[in-house]
């Protein structure tokens, strides 16, 4: 409550990188951060599905974020970290390369997507923050997980 009162419009973001790009997710969307282990791949699933795994009794569907966003992922064929989120009644893990610190950012500084933003990113981007030296792309989780709509459009 104190944090909120300093500046009424601060939002906390969990930051992470995928294929060198910095992303942020509002912290209330993030359930946990974990290292994906013993992942089972799912035959016949699309490239954005990395597999399924057991996280403390829950079955988590792992989304290969760089494949999902069509980003270049040569460096890390199997990303080492996962960000756990709930979507509907289901659990998902977004596979990412590194997880950084939690940043408190004022909502007023969040900017609209630049109109020339890479279209692959624009689809799932809910705004951009200008940080010192780099840009943070706010990820729209709902659109990231809306695999069906994209497939239908493709």
């Amino acid at each position, binding site marked *: 409550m104190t944090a909120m009162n300093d500046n009424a419009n601060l939002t906390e973001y969990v930051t992470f990188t995928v294929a060198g790009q910095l992303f942020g997710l509002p912290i209330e969307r993030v359930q946990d951060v974990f290292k994906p282990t013993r992942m*089972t*791949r799912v*035959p*016949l699933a699309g490239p954005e*599905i990395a597999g399924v795994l057991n996280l403390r*009794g829950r079955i988590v*569907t792992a989304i290969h974020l760089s494949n999902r966003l069509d980003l270049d992922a040569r460096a890390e064929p199997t990303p080492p970290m996962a960000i756990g989120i709930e979507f509907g009644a289901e659990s998902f893990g977004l596979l990412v390369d590194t997880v950084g610190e939690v940043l408190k950012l004022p909502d007023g500084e969040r900017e609209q997507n630049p109109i020339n933003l890479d279209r692959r990113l624009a689809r799932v981007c809910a705004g951009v923050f200008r940080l010192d030296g780099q840009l943070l792309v706010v990820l729209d989780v709902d659109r990231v997980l809306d695999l069906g709509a994209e497939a239908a459009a493709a």
Partner: protein
Amino acid sequence: MDELLRDFLTETGENLDLVDAELVRFEQDPNDGSILGNIFRLVHTIKGTCGFLGLSRLEMLTHAAETLMGKFRDGMPVTGEAVTLILSTLDRIKAILDELAATEREPAGSDADLIEQLARLARQDPAAPRLPPSDRSGLRRADQGRGASGSGAAQKTAPEGSEKAVTEPSEKLAGHSIRVSVDTLDRLMTTVSELVLTRNQLLEIVRRHEDSDFKVPLQRLSNVTAELQEGVMKTRMQPIGNAWQKLPRIVRDLCAELGKEIELEMHGADTELDRQVLELVRDPLTHLVRNCADHGIESPAARIAAGKLRSGTIRLSACHQGGHIIIEIADDGRGLDTARIKAKAAEIGLASEADLAGKSDSEICNFIFSPGFSTAAEITSISGRGVGMDVVRSNIEQIGGTVDLTSAAGAGTAFTIKIPLTLAIVSSLIVEVAGERFAIPQLSVLELVRAGGGGEHRIERIKDTPVLRLRNKLLPLLHLKDVMRLGDGDRSSGFIVVIQVGNQVFGAVVDGVLHTEEIVIKPMSSKLRHIAVFSGTTILGDGSVIMIVDPNGLAQSLGRAAQAAEADARELKESEHVAAEATVSLLVFRAGSQRPKAVPLSLVTRLEEIDCRRIEISDGRNLVQYRDQLMPLLRIDSGTGLRKEGAQPILVFSDHGRSMGLLVDEIVDIVEDKLDIEVTSDHPGVLGYAVVKGNTTEIVDVGHFLPQAFADWFRRRDGSTPGPARTVLLVDDSPFFRDMLAPLIKAAGYQVVAVGSGSAALAAMKSDHPIDLVVTDIEMPDMDGFALAQAMRGAPDTAAIPIIALATMVSDETIERGRAVGFHDFVAKFDRPGLIAAIKEQSADLTRAA
């Protein structure tokens, strides 16, 4: 919704069901004061709560019913009329409750009609004369009710004593049970599953450390966990009697409606099963009981004439057997009429007369589970309402159960249902494919066969299709490796899991079978639900997640799920021109080898037997004089002998005034079946192999023999057949060529819609059947191929559909003209490989364009 109201609705709903059942019992046994006490108390509770919630309409109605029941308690005789009235009052109450649940408000309306009648009956003098019992539906209670009414004084004391007896246990019960939401139980179940997994991991760790201090406490933890798991499972269990609760009322109403006398016996109502399964089995059970009452039990007169007791009995029983619950619904009625079932089966094309003759009575009886089957001569309001036994069967199969029936003429019918106790946990076979593990539910597994490695069985191939010889039958196989696209590898050996789905049996080839395990089924992620070969996920004891294979999905990927075939067969009847998917009449014969051969009957003009002496040999060819023409006779293969004497059976094919005869050894049968060429053949004269009535049968390519008879058979007419890819619309005015080319295109893996004219083709393209490619004859009466192409190009919907023309004579001029109207390709009519190649090429273009 207001919580108070919701609780009221739930509770009242349950109470009403109880009252329903109790009333029927009471009607049969009005001397049982404890039942009356129960009913009275339940109705009283409902009335009280209604008043409390300000539901005035309900309150007035229940009050009137209560008053009448109070009279019963005071010794008024129980009549069928009164019980019927109370039952209809309960129905009205239920209807009001339904509205209440939907709108949260008591609906407007008047119940004066019911209240008035209830009051009238309550006012009646108990001693007033009543209708004799035989005038009513004839249930036993009528007599007993009257008997009891004679001695009012004796009657009075009984209810008082019994009322006390009833209230006491019910008070005790109230303190012993609480209402828990199903969600809470489900969450508890998930938590326990998690605990089990953690325990398993701990056990694994301790196993590696020999002298661990943890050993003993962990053993204790392990036992407690197992008990907890069992306990939580139990909370989800409910007695099967809950699904039976409505049945006494249903049977009673049916009796009244049908003028029958039926007693419903229930045994093992306390047998427990998972509540989810219970919900799913409720409707099929109700349907079967209705069926017994309607079709099974005869009228009292018919029963007496047959020397049976006047009243029939439907017996419901349930018991546990292994991990299953067995429910039996038996009646002592007339049994199934096998003759009528046979006639109906033949009529709707389920089997040929010849087939039926060879079937046992029990096999015949099972036809009633086929879609569209009803032998009831007239549709009654009770069970002939389009909800067939096929729905019952598919509902039961959906939850991994089976339904079977036995029937004895005159003695009755018994249905036996076997269902798993719970859907949450199934016994599964854990198999390995390309290093990955999968679970296959054991319910659908018939057996395991080891193939290769010098053993008895070996995977064989018919062209690219793997099959296995298993006890003299050819078992179609599919490699899970291929189905799941898990790369290459050894295809010649492995384990074959023989799976049955519906009536279809096939083998799934896996690399290894690891063990069996009781798995807890977890729903599939919504992102994976589109993958048909998987039905769910599960966590194994070692903590890893694996996919559960769906046998139905596998059957579909085999391309010929039994149900689909049945559905297709039905569709075909409806639309005659969708030739490829319809059942066709096949002429089965033998020639040369012992393997049966078949041709579509529609191709055959006549079956003839000719005197061998009439066969002449000219120029190395066999000829016979047939209808004032010389007809060439051909052998299917060198093995077919020409008889030296007697009658030689031949198949005569005619088109445009010319005929040829095919020599055969023996005509075997004419059967109705779906012509589904599963394995194509490179052997000239054989289109491929299909399973016809369970036998692998060579489908003979008549097209191969025609040019042998008359070299110019195909050349006489300038024909073009445009063919779209995927769904190919075949346009040819000659039924003969349609019948010949349709299976050929089908064999190459396309859907075929065959029509006989250009205008029919345009109509077919306008219907909702999507056409990908058109193959058309050029020379046709009325609208020829060129005109058809022009018409297609003129309409926006059809302008883009590729057209392949079938031409007999391809002149430069024809080609020029064809290009102009938009033919994509020309194929000579007799060039069958060329036609298939052209179709393939055009459909590849389509795929690229999409």
